[in-house]
């Protein structure tokens, strides 16, 4: 099974992003997804910057994929997706059906924001050129197994195995709302929250993460314990979604489990302190996404 790094969901300063990719290129990562997928106002890196970065990473032997925005509202956002889809040097991960429509006829990838919930949908999109799909995050191991049994030969399956779960997208920015700022004058407050802004219940239970117009889980999805099962199911790629700190531990742990047969208990122990809050795996086991069914919960 290959390892991939998903697009950075948060808004990091340019220097932090460039530093991150300078480091990731030295790591045992096979596939790197690049681009802004959440908010069109985040322009620390523009398309030209992403393309330069893509060239460098590809030169270094990585497979590079460019990811599109997920929620498109303004005409200018659709225009940006069109420009991205015009370039031919890299494969594109479509996160909105607009990109699927624009990419039809050439090989493309769908991200977790494209609803592929059954084999008939998968087969239809494979006919359109789909060469790899990312399992929607709310689907279970059972559904994946059914899909794998029926998937067309030429398509690869990728599963998010580590990272905050992308749960919702809105026209309104909840980070700006928190600061009582209009969306158009948000002062880029997301830059102050490299792992998003934690939302807790009124009794202090961490619940969600506000990340601009995106809402994520508070808990970090960790499917370390399901990797062996995924391999048996024929999953081709395990995706790690970047967070602000501890990436070296996270990448090496997943790599060591996949490639060196590192003991799961040891691996889980290594990850115990890396979560911004805690971990969850409920979706995989068919439960509520926030449940932690195979992960010992550390008292907060």
């Amino acid at each position: 099974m290959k390892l991939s790094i998903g697009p950075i969901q948060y808004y990091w300063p340019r220097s932090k992003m460039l530093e991150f990719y300078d480091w990731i290129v030295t790591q045992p990562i096979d596939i790197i997804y690049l681009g802004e997928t959440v908010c069109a106002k985040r322009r620390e890196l523009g398309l030209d910057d992403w393309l330069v970065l893509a060239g460098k990473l590809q030169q270094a032997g990585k497979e590079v994929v460019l990811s599109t925005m997920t929620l498109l509202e303004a005409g200018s956002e659709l225009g940006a997706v069109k420009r991205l889809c015009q370039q031919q040097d890299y494969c594109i991960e479509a996160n909105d059906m607009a990109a699927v429509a624009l990419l039809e006829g050439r090989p493309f990838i769908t991200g977790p924001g494209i609803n592929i919930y059954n084999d008939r949908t998968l087969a239809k999109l494979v006919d359109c050129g789909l060469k790899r799909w990312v399992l929607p995050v709310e689907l279970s191991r059972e559904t994946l197994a059914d899909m794998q049994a029926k998937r067309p030969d030429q398509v690869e399956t990728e599963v998010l195995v580590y990272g905050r779960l992308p749960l919702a997208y809105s026209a309104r920015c909840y980070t700006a709302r928190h600061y009582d700022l209009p969306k158009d004058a948000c002062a880029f407050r997301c830059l102050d929250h490299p792992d998003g802004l934690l939302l807790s219940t009124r009794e202090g239970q961490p619940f969600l993460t506000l990340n601009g117009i995106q809402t994520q889980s508070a808990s970090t999805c960790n499917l370390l314990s399901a990797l062996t099962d995924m391999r048996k199911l024929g999953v081709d790629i395990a995706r790690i979604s970047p967070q602000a700190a501890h990436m070296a531990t996270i990448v090496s742990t997943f790599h060591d489990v996949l490639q060196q047969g590192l003991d799961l208990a040891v691996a889980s122990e290594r990850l115990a302190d890396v979560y911004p809050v805690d971990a969850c795996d409920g979706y995989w086991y068919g439960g509520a996404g926030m449940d932690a069914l195979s992960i010992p919960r550390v008292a907060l």
Partner: protein
Amino acid sequence: MELVCPAGNLQSLKAAVDNGANAVYFGLRDDTNARHFAGLNFTAKTAHDGLRYAHDHGVRVFMAINTYPQPSNWSRWQAAVEQAAGLGVDALICADIGVMDFTANQFPELPLHLSVQGSATNDQAIRFYHRHFGIRRVVLPRVLSVRQVEQVVQNSPVAIEVFGFGSLCVMVEGRCLLSSYATGCSPNTYGACSPAKDVVWQDTAEGLETRLNHVLIDRYAEGENTGYPTLCKGRFEVAGKTGYAIEEPVSLNTLGILPQLQSIGVSAIKIEGRQRSPAYVGRVTRVLRAALDACTRDPQHYQPEPDWMAALAAVSEGAQTTLGAYDRPWQ
């Protein structure tokens, strides 16, 4: 503009028809539609009776099969499509590519509308569904401004329907997993958000609490208006501030912008609320009918009547209404 009204049961369907609906939409009693609530929706018999009642009164009937089947339950969605074809509904409202592919292949004469759960916010996405499945209409998610709706209308190959009144989803529909994160059931997979089976109301020393699968969604002080614990409309803590961090309990109301929606070329206005009572459906349909008629007669001088606004506020969440993303006071 066509007025499309919700029918959670036969009484609601008749209330919609009797109060001026141009079309009604309904679903079956299972998870194949996005209002999968206990005691709601239609059996084969009531669907047949409802269809006849509507058609006898010149009202069109759309059937919602707008959730996402998985391989293990696909047969239920296929059966729903077959039932719709047998009933002779005027259109199917669908979200899933597989369901539309099946329908377009097996029942090419059955008109398809793309549900709001299909998440199409732009003309390119619409083109995909038009090219492959010949959809005739799209219901837009409640995330676009009037100007953005206009752009979609101008570039779309098919008719555009928008929400005119009812409960407000602030997340783009079809891609909101908040409910399954908390409960395991989402609109996509189960046909309901914040499902009632996971809701608990509890009187405590600190006030009345509402929980969704044990997660505290809100806590009400004495005398505060209470509401259903839809999880995006709860009160939470963010960096020391407690309040409605995502959205307040509020309903969408577009009476104030009907002439604009008409002039930019919107084809149909949808009322949300299949889970609401026949009285709600009757009242809201009557108000929207009067408003649409007034707007069509004389858009220049159209003004929402105060008693229309009062009638709608009385059935709104938190007794408040908003223009939501159409107007964007928060932009």
